């Protein structure tokens, strides 16, 4: 049972991350390689606020989102005027910088040793320390994030994000300030990624920089590419696929010595097949040319 609850929590965290990434890549056409940095800053902010400053979970939650809204400013400053692969490379630089800071600023982040003893969430006197209660908290937060994105994609603003994605030059020739829409997209995505970071930190009660590497950023991109860019159901299905498929492969009878590696190889092969035969992912409306 605990195993299933753990899987559910991981699904919740990755659905939030995929939805945040989908706003950038799927709706705004911005291929960001720094999503794990946003996620990590959110997790570290919450962890430090909870352990060092002993604030409540609610304040740590708001603080992490707020800090992320500021922490994405360098990305906006040096990457927002760039397009396509150049944008991706600039965000890659920020990912590397953030990881280096988390890893080396030992006096603040405890470096490679990470932060331990992060308390479980307590909201209005209700403790979410058990697995089942954490699933409920994570579920409520995920549904709220989902509703936020459903709403966001129904308002006229979403059309401008998609305009930037489809043709930046055309947007400029129509007098639109594309940097404004790109900035907005990065800010919202960064803030939402922080929420996933808060859940991650309080669920595991321990974080270290290795959870927020470039590999993780690439993984988040692969989730939205496989699920399909530009749709909410694409992000959800991509996250579920990523979390559930390796777990399903556990039920195949593989010798223990090679099980972990073989599972990942099968998983990677499935990813390649999806990219080859479903270039729009499961439910995508758009793909990078």
């Amino acid at each position, binding site marked *: 049972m605990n195993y299933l609850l753990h899987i559910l929590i991981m699904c919740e965290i990755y659905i939030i991350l995929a939805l945040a990434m989908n706003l950038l890549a799927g709706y705004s056409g911005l291929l960001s390689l720094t999503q794990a940095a946003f996620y990590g800053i959110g997790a570290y902010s919450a962890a430090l606020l909870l352990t060092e400053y002993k604030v409540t979970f609610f304040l740590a939650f708001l603080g992490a989102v707020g800090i992320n809204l500021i922490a994405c400013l360098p990305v906006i400053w040096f990457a927002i005027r760039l397009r396509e692969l150049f944008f991706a490379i600039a965000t890659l630089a920020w990912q590397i910088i953030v990881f280096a800071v988390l890893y080396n600023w030992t006096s603040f982040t405890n470096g490679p040793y990470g932060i331990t003893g992060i308390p479980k969430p307590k909201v209005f006197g209700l403790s979410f320390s058990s697995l089942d209660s954490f699933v409920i908290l994570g579920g409520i937060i995920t549904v709220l994030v989902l509703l936020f994105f459903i709403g966001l994609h129904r*308002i*006229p*603003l979403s*059309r*401008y994000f*998609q*305009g930037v*994605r*489809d*043709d930046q*030059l*055309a*947007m*400029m*020739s*129509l*007098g*639109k*300030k594309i940097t*404004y829409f790109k900035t*907005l997209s990065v800010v919202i995505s960064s803030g939402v990624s922080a929420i996933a970071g808060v859940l991650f930190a309080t669920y595991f009660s321990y974080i270290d920089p290795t959870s927020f590497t470039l590999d993780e950023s690439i993984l988040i991109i692969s989730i939205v590419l496989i699920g399909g860019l*530009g749709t909410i159901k694409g992000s959800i299905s991509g996250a579920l696929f990523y979390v559930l498929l390796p777990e399903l492969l556990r039920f195949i009878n593989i010798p223990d010595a090679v099980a972990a590696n073989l599972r990942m190889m099968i998983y990677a092969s499935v990813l390649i097949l999806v990219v080859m035969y479903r270039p729009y992912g499961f439910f995508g*409306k*758009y793909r990078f040319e």
Partner: protein
Amino acid sequence: MILKVEHISKSFNGLNVLKDVSFLVHAGTITSLFGENGSGKTTLFHIIAGFLKPTSGNVYFQNENLHHKSADEIDELGIGRTWQSPRIFKNLSVQDNLLLATKDHPGERLFNYILKPGIIWREEKRRKIRANEVCGEVGLAGKLQKTAGALSYGQQKLLSIGMLLMNDAELLLLDEPFAGVNTQMIDAISKVLLQLKESGKTVLLVEHNRSKATEISDKVLHLVKGSIEEQEFITP
């Protein structure tokens, strides 16, 4: 006179693409600009629309010098342009393309959703009605909900003209509106352009199809190797 191009020259790394180009465009007329490939037509369009700065010379729109204005400021003044290959938003519906082209939609600003949400939805409704009208005006009636990328090439050109109408452009710069479309579509586009002229809009177009463009034009300019060689006034 709505547009005055005065002694425009442009060179790239020592190569003179435009040499002392001057001409006038009068309001409510159609002016065609002809020239061989590489004669500088598109460069001239880029300069008028603010995507390039001239090496020397000035462009005036309604007596306002555009020299220090950016592309979006020039668009704001009322100059809209289309591109050789239609630059539409192919993954969006025709309606969304037309709505994207409108100016100052309150829904563009995030804080308006908190401060004045009612205005956003009123404007959205009003602009959707206008989009439906424009769709009819450019011959795309009934295609409002169709994905723009699924339209034929000629229809995409009509859509890009429709977007300029939604953008309230007074001067429409059309880059080869007849290129790559069949005769039937050329007639449809010509009809739309003449209707625009009748409604008081001004059109400056670059074209290779001289016969059709001359047929609908009030004035024809010949650009040869970066210079205006000839100005011809068409008498109906």
